[in-house]
């Protein structure tokens, strides 16, 4: 099949991929040609439509083949060829409008058309007409149609001769045809398409000639040639798209632009009136015509299932209109841009564009209505859009686009070649680059794509996380220690050995067995805190507190964890309770104050307690935590140092000191404190993570990555650390490792970032 070859990999065309899934152009061709393999008999009108499209494609192919060697056509020439927008931009109209020279463009077109593989086309032609039954030989020189035979064949031959007539430059002689049984819709379709075709074939001839030809055709077919009466139709829409796209790919200077504009204006209302276009359009379709027409087209197209190929054009149309909107955004003030920006993002969030495997894919026009209404809302219907541009006059509009082309020369090429590969991820980058005219830098474009990825990932994990958010403990699945005779003991052993994650499992088994075991819960909480999971720590500690409200360690741990989470009020309450329940200091803390606590008061009480028993390290520890809460870091550091003098081998105390120093941006001191803690307890995940934080806060991102990875190796569930790792990776410009981070691939990370 010559045509298919041309589409899928002929000499001059660099069409990526030949499978229909990745090559929309090929798919279109397949649909057009291959659909004849279906058992159903194509309705004449659809056949006609396909014929037309075949013509267009084929002629476009010819034109392109001729054009490619000539350098005058810019790069978009060959690129456009491969694009999904192919059916539109490659329509003969575009070439003809560029090259408005006298002298039989029409005939040249057909010559080219003919010079190609006639047999191939004949075959194509035949296939469309159900080869088993009608072997219809292609007679190019035939000027008079066959008037007998099945309606389908008649119609096609009739139409074909119409085309032929253009070659000879001879007027078309209408001859009456028997009733072909064309429905209204069919007629309208034919009318529109014929006008398009005619205009392109006879572009070099006068408008009158064109109209005459079309009229001849239509009268034979008994169709009313009333342009205005046309309702919203694919044909009309496509035409509009065509012309709009002409402006997109237009490279040559004003002369062609003028020609196009005047022709367009002529066609519409017969006189050059800048507003006529908008008005006539409005008349026909209402103020929101364009958008509603698009909507209509979408629904129309979905019902024409034979036009499988049309799915791609409509997707292309959708993308094009998006492109349209996007280019519009370029031209207007930042407000406009921002709203487009928002639209885009809301579209993303709504799922009109879905994300799979790091690629953004449009969900096939699932919400044309949404888009249309969005567009309408955005632009106040077609009117304001038209007004905006028409306020510059028709030439102005074209000039704007031309200059737009110069400024963003690569826009179309990129867009088109991207769509040919259907790699919309690139488009996202492109969009990111273009919207705001460089406002979004390279990095953030990447970030955008990643962000959407994350967004979806987040959606799946958010359920899981919401349970732990407020004090509900989440048990691990597949706990090997369940059924163990004495899991508490086991847990304590493991904890002592420093195997925190294992200890957690054992202790979970314990509290599943004995939910009232305060010690079990307490130790579980401590294990989680040391594993750098404050959420679970809080959940465990609260269960422990339920069982034993007076346990001081529990109260302190709760105070610490809440301070870490910056939950000031709760932390204060717990620390105050520590004082209340302490056998020695309970007298200092009047219980009635518990409901309205102020730092100053509580701090005073603690200081009193410290004076009472200066050798009590715990008082100092709690005081230190308290000062952290009020961000009086110097005092906190002092308290901790005092406590450390009394308890120098308390690793968690060293960590507290380090954290306080880090939070007051004394990072160097913090690191040495952490080191002390790690010397005492090598598997202290929290300390490792804190090390990472301190390096990151100093801007030493490379180092921080190593520490984070180390912490994560010990506890892969430390979500905080994963997030910080991600930030550090991006700060260190190690985006190559970002995937490993997102997929939590510790092996890769450990290999890459050893300590």
């Amino acid at each position: 099949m010559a045509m298919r070859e041309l589409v899928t990999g002929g000499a001059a065309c660099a069409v990526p991929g030949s499978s229909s899934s990745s090559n929309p152009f090929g798919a279109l061709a397949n649909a057009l040609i291959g659909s004849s393999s279906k058992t159903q008999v194509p309705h004449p009108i659809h056949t006609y439509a396909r014929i037309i499209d075949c013509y267009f494609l084929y002629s476009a192919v010819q034109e392109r083949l001729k054009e490619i060697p000539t350098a005058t056509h810019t790069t978009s020439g060959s690129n456009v060829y491969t694009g999904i927008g192919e059916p539109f931009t490659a329509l003969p109209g575009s070439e003809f409008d560029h090259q408005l020279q006298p002298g039989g463009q029409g005939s040249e077109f057909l010559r080219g058309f003919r010079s190609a593989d006639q047999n191939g086309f004949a075959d194509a032609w035949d296939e469309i007409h159900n080869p088993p039954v009608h072997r219809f030989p292609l007679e190019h020189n035939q000027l008079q149609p066959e008037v007998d035979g099945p309606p389908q064949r008649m119609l096609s031959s009739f139409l074909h001769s119409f085309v032929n007539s253009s070659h000879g430059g001879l007027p078309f002689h209408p001859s009456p045809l028997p009733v072909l049984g064309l429905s209204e819709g069919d007629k309208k379709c034919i009318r529109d398409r014929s006008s398009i075709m005619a205009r392109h074939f006879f572009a070099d001839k006068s408008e009158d000639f064109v109209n005459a030809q079309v009229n001849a055709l239509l009268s034979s077919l008994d169709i009313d040639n009333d342009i205005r009466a046309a309702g919203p139709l694919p044909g009309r829409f496509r035409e509009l798209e065509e012309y709009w796209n002409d402006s997109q790919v237009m490279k040559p200077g004003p002369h062609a632009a003028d020609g196009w504009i005047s022709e367009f204006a002529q066609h519409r209302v017969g006189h050059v009136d800048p507003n006529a276009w908008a008005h006539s359009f409005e008349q026909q379709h209402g103020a929101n015509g364009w958008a509603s027409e698009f909507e209509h087209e979408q629904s129309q197209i979905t019902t024409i299932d034979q036009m499988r190929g049309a799915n791609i054009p409509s997707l292309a149309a959708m993308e094009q209109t998006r492109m349209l909107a996007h280019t519009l955004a370029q031209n207007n003030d930042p407000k406009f841009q921002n709203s487009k920006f928002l639209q885009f993002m809301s579209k993303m969030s709504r799922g009109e564009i879905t994300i799979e495997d790091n690629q953004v894919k449009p969900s096939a026009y699932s919400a044309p209505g949404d888009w249309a209404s969005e567009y309408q809302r955005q632009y106040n219907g077609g009117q304001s859009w038209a007004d905006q541009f028409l306020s510059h006059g028709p030439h102005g509009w074209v000039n704007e686009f031309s200059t737009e082309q110069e400024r963003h020369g690569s826009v179309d090429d990129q867009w088109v070649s991207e769509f040919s590969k259907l790699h919309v991820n690139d488009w996202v980058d492109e969009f990111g680059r273009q919207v705001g005219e460089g406002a979004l830098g390279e990095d953030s474009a990447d970030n955008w794509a990643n962000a959407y990825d994350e967004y979806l990932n987040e959606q799946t994990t958010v359920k899981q996380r919401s349970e732990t958010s407020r004090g509900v403990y989440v048990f691990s699945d597949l706990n090997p220690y369940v059924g163990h005779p004495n899991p508490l003991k086991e847990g304590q052993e493991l904890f002592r050995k420093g195997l925190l994650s294992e200890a957690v499992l054992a202790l979970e088994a314990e509290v599943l067995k004995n939910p009232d075991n305060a010690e079990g819960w307490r130790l579980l909480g401590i294990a989680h805190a040391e594993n750098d999971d404050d959420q679970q720590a809080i959940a465990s500690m609260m269960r422990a507190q339920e069982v034993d409200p007076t346990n001081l360690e529990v109260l302190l741990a709760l105070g610490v964890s809440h301070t870490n989470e910056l939950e000031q009020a709760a932390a204060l309450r717990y620390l105050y309770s520590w004082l209340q329940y302490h056998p020695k200091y309970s007298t200092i803390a009047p219980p009635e104050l518990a409901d309205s606590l102020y730092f100053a008061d509580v701090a005073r009480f603690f200081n009193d307690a410290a004076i009472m028993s200066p050798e009590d390290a715990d008082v100092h520890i709690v005081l230190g935590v308290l000062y952290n809460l009020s961000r009086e870091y110097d005092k906190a550091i002092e308290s901790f140092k005092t406590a450390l003098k009394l308890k120098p081998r308390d690793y968690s105390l060293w960590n507290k000191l380090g954290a306080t120093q880090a939070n007051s941006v004394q990072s160097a001191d913090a690191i040495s404190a952490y080191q002390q803690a790690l010397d005492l307890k090598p598997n202290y995940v929290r300390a490792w993570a804190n090390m990472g934080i301190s390096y990151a806060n100093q801007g030493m991102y490379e180092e921080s990555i190593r520490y984070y990875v180390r912490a994560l190796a010990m506890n892969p569930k430390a979500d905080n650390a994963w997030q910080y790792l991600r930030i550090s990776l991006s700060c260190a410009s190690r985006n190559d490792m970002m995937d490993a981070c997102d997929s939590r691939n510790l092996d890769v990370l450990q290999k890459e970032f050893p300590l």
Partner: protein
Amino acid sequence: MASSSELKSAALMDQMKLHLASDAGKDLVKKIGLVYQINIAPKKISFNEEIYVVDLKKGEVTKGPYEGGKPDATFSFTDQDFFKVATGKMNPQIAFMRGAMKVKGSLSAAQKFTPDIFPKPSKM
């Protein structure tokens, strides 16, 4: 120096203030050089806001609306959401998409507002 604010974000702001005085903070000022105003509301955006100005031109954090002209970008958050964004738990783009973060002013300036600007809190 104690802050009377109840917001979590206040703690982050204080840490930021200290951070800007350090070397890393000075690098940040060099790198960004913009003025951000951040309106933080306890529960619902725009209600009972506390306003902070993170001035990455001068390298300071102040409380109250920006007096020295117009900030390059103004953000509005709730306390929880700002905390999440600043600690990297939530991506700013996602926050924006969800409406958890509102932006006014220069978009390019807003793009530079990333979690890595803020120093992370260490855990005791």
